[in-house]
């Protein structure tokens, strides 16, 4: 058993690409779901719009990367308006249905052969990250204790985590303000908020836009760090991973989505590495589990872990147990 590699892989995952990307996605969801009570099941759609906004703008239109970033953000605002205008006046479940469908529709459009000239079809888009790579100030590998990252990794991780911190700052400023108070009140009972003279519809729209834009940043960072946009990275499971991160860390808390994502991906790495070594060293016989099943089994363990969390700590890592108790009254 190589415990050192298990731990180093786990640590690297805690601050690695997936943790960073899903922290961003979950921060956006936190504003939607945690603070406003909006059930957005299409966060992957917002991520896809960010990613393809960058990819298409840079590769097909030869524009610089920063233009692509703006296009991605504007696209996310547009998607939020498109989804929100018809549904935010309706009951909460309509938004859930619409967003989950819209996310899938977007994915199918992006991977459709008909639009291959723009989107690259199921192959996706490559070669749009040159501006980003060229701006890399790091050179040589980075090593610290058990962790090692390449210069490329260091660069996108630095930018990505900086975006995470900026988003956290934004959410903190927003949610401590009277604006955030209105959002939380809408989560509790929107009719009561209406009766007090607040334009609930406008607030829900603002929340959907801001959280969606943060989601699009997650998509951009995923694309830029992988130097490729793959349509199937933006499927519904991506949305639910982001939800898992959020709930793990604690919805409606400032750091919940960030720490939740770090925990989620380190557990994923830990279980995978542990299982793989156990199988390789014949601690687990082939009759129970083979090496190729490690990927599936770690998801089972993750699911079990989440179920246990819901039983013993439903408020997540950072949540306030008193608040959860109130919702069941």
């Amino acid at each position, binding site marked *: 058993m190589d415990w050192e590699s298990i731990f180093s892989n786990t640590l690297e995952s805690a601050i690695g690409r997936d943790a960073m990307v899903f922290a961003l996605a979950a921060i956006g969801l936190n504003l939607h779901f945690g603070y406003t009570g909006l059930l957005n099941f299409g966060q992957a759609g917002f991520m896809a719009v960010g990613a393809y906004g960058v990819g298409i703008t840079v590769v097909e239109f030869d524009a610089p990367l920063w233009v692509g970033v703006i296009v991605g953000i504007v696209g996310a605002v547009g998607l939020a308006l498109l989804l929100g205008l018809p549904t935010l006046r309706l009951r909460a479940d309509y938004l859930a249905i619409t967003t989950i469908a819209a996310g899938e529709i977007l994915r199918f459009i992006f991977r459709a052969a008909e639009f291959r000239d723009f989107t690259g079809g199921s192959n996706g888009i490559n070669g749009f990250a040159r501006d980003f790579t060229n701006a890399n100030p790091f050179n040589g590998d980075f090593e610290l204790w058990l962790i090692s990252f390449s210069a490329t990794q260091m660069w996108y991780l630095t930018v990505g985590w900086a975006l995470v911190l900026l988003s956290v700052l*934004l959410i903190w*400023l*927003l949610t*401590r*303000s*009277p*604006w*955030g*108070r*209105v959002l*939380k*009140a809408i*989560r*509790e*009972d929107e*009719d*009561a*908020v*209406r*009766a*007090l*003279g*607040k*334009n*609930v519809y406008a607030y829900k729209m*603002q929340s959907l836009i801001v959280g969606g834009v943060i989601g699009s940043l997650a998509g951009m960072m995923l694309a830029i760090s992988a130097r490729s946009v793959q349509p199937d990275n933006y499927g519904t499971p991506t949305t639910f991973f982001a939800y898992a991160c959020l709930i793990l860390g604690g919805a409606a808390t400032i750091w919940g989505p960030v720490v939740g994502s770090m925990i989620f991906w380190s557990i994923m790495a830990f279980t995978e590495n542990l299982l793989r070594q156990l199988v390789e060293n014949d601690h687990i016989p082939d009759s129970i589990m083979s090496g190729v099943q490690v990927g599936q089994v770690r998801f089972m363990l993750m699911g079990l872990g989440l179920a246990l969390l819901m039983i013993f700590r439903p408020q997540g890592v950072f949540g306030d147990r*008193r*608040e959860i108790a*109130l*919702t069941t*009254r």
Partner: protein
Amino acid sequence: MTETTPSPNTGFTRIRVDAFEDVPEQPGARKPDPILVVESLTRRFGGLMAVDVDHLEFQRGAITGLIGPNGAGKTTLFNLLTGFDKPNTGTWSFNGRPMRGLSAHKVAQAGMVRTFQLTKALSRLTVMDNMKLGATGQTGERFFPSLVRSRWRGQEKAIEERAEALLERFNLHHMRDEFAGALSGGQRKLLEMARALMVEPELVMLDEPMAGVNPALAQTIIGHVRDLAADGLSVVFVEHDMDVVRTVSDWVVVMAEGRVIAEGRHASIVTNPEVIDAYLGRHHGTPLDPAEQERQLAEAQAEIEAELEAEERAREQEGA
């Protein structure tokens, strides 16, 4: 005619001119200074006419009790007037301003604030945050200014002071930092009322503000309702308890099956045969004196309870 009412909360005696002196006691009666005027308002749910009001005026500065049997359309009328539901036909004006088509938040901003039959405490907000939410025109509630605390800090402070005073008055001050979800049913009613006052309305519409609270607290709430009128607010409230209606309201409007069937002072309402019909059904013969009414109600109640028990027993046997 002048009327003197001892106000239970202040101990002062309130003397005022009776605005209803020349108002005829009949449905649709014109008032000297109406704050809210309703014109041919209807709302249909499928085949059911839930609200069908020809003409109805609410007097400014008065406490109007809105009564009627279950399903009479009182809540639906509230929903229509406050923008929570859309009528099939009809118009209404508040302070002379036409209100039809205005969304609920615009109605509240115009100065007409309602509470709900099923109390809506915002559970995972503190009592204080519930209160602060009620204040209108907050700079910090706009997206970009909210990011800069210095833009809204001063206003927030002023709002907090106003909220403190109201919480004190409604005897909720000791709960200010608790989650509203931790309040008792009665305290939630108080909070909802206090929160509505944060909007600084001219007209408050209370849907059964005393339902389900203990008699002592009901008395307190009655006192608060009176104080609102004493402060110059107009009040419309729905209530089933006739004793309460008698002690608080200056004027009573009776609804049944969507229509306004009677209007007047409490004394004339309780002897009005139409009203008794509406409450006790059409075919009961001669008008009843209160004692007889009480007896019949008790009888009906006993019957219903017996029926429920029989059902319960039947269900238990099925289960066994």
